[in-house]
């Protein structure tokens, strides 16, 4: 693994992302706009918005990273650049870490805009520190990236990659506590919910929501999400083959 090559790779991926002005605009503006819409819908129930808005702050970068990673990586696989990179000094981990750095930066930018709008203008309230919200959002975004990386190995077209959204992302969003608290679901659904990493991101956010100080429970939940990032990354890196048929 080479730090130099990781940074060069991250720079190239960011340059590709920045060259697409429309995507940059959508990435930065859409989450803030949707959260504004949700806030207007929940105008009469600020406590519900505090809960939902906070989860959405993490859910957007998660979805975004999943989508752009699975598609950009699929392009590398089908466009021949991955095969070419595999004949250069670029290691698999350099490539994966490059993606994590570049898209992690994109997630940070997205979260900054969305969080600023939500906290400053939409009256979103969290008892705990904002930096903890930020940290949870970035780790969750990295989980989306790692999942997208893994999933891109099973898609042969961009169309298929998009179809993986309802398979890998939507159930996690529905079961994580975004639309219904996990502890009020049927027993077996709670079991499924407990097995999904996004649920722990939501639990961590709930901790920040109600406690003025960062709790050890939050660190524990965040550690689970981070472990999921590592597992998905290793699985994803394993799908990058130097030799293929």
């Amino acid at each position, binding site marked *: 693994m080479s730090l*130099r090559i990781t940074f060069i790779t991250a720079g*190239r991926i960011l340059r590709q992302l920045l060259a697409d002005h429309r995507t940059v605009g959508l990435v930065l503006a859409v989450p803030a706009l949707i959260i504004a819409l949700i806030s207007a819908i929940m105008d009469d129930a600020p406590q519900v918005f505090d809960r939902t808005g906070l989860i959405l702050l993490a859910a957007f970068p998660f979805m975004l990273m999943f989508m752009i990673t699975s598609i950009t990586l699929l392009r590398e696989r089908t466009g021949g650049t991955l095969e070419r990179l595999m004949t250069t000094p670029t290691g698999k981990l350099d490539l994966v870490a490059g993606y994590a750095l570049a898209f992690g930066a994109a997630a940070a930018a997205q979260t900054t805009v969305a969080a600023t709008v939500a906290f400053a203008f939409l009256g979103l309230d969290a008892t705990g520190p904002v930096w903890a919200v930020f940290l949870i959002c970035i780790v969750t975004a990295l989980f989306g990236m790692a999942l997208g990386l893994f999933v891109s190995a099973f898609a042969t077209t961009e169309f298929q990659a998009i179809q993986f959204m309802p398979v890998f992302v939507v159930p996690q969003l529905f079961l994580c506590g975004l639309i219904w608290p996990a502890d009020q679901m049927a027993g077996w659904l709670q079991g499924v919910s407990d097995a999904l990493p996004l649920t722990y991101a939501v639990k961590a956010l709930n901790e920040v929501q109600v406690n003025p100080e960062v709790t050890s429970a939050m660190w524990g939940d965040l550690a689970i999400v981070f472990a999921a990032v590592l597992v998905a990354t290793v699985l994803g890196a394993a799908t990058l083959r130097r030799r*293929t048929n």
Partner: protein
Amino acid sequence: MPSDPSSAIAVGDLVVDRGRKPVLRGVSTRIAAGSVTGLLGPSGSGKTTFIRAVVGTQKVKSGTVEVLGHPAGSKPLRKRLAYVTQDASIYPDLSVKANVAYFAALYGRGRHEAMVAIERVGMGDHADRLAGNLSGGQKTRTSLACALVIEPEVLVLDEPTVGLDPVIREELWDQFRTLAREGATLLVSSHVMDEADRCDRLLLLREGRFIADDTPADLRAVTGTENLEAAFLHLIRDLEKAD
């Protein structure tokens, strides 16, 4: 197979299956350092598979492939070998300059070297254009610049001149010759027979086997024909008679 310092590429009894279909059925050859070797054959004969085995991206069933004394695809080779795939493997959403600079940077080379490589393939006037907006031939040349920028000891090119106009094809072949004169080893696949004369040595692949591994002059002499196209037809007919 013992390593031979004089041959840059040594392939011994290479067998490759894709799916259940045999693609290479036990091919062997040695390619001398500082030479241009043409890999010729009809489409579907296994040229790309052979090339991918040499650069180390192809799963092989049996046999050996050594490049510069190392197993194909092994780590020490990744700084010394460059591979230009058949379809231009570049990033369409980056400029020509950004593409070449990226591959240059992976090898610790800077923007200046990138511009030199871009000029070398005649893309200097298009350096700031997005690769996705280029014509097919311009994409190929950009992809080639991404390989030239690292000044590889071994340069492997899969059909680099497909769809190029004759003037640029001529220029590229002149460059291949220059690189070989400077000591690089080139393996170039093509299905255009008139390019065969520009090679030091020819490998003719047909249905997964080499039916010729010789210099252009010897091939003409052996087959008693004037042009190489006729020489190959002659070889193929002889084989068919033998069957």
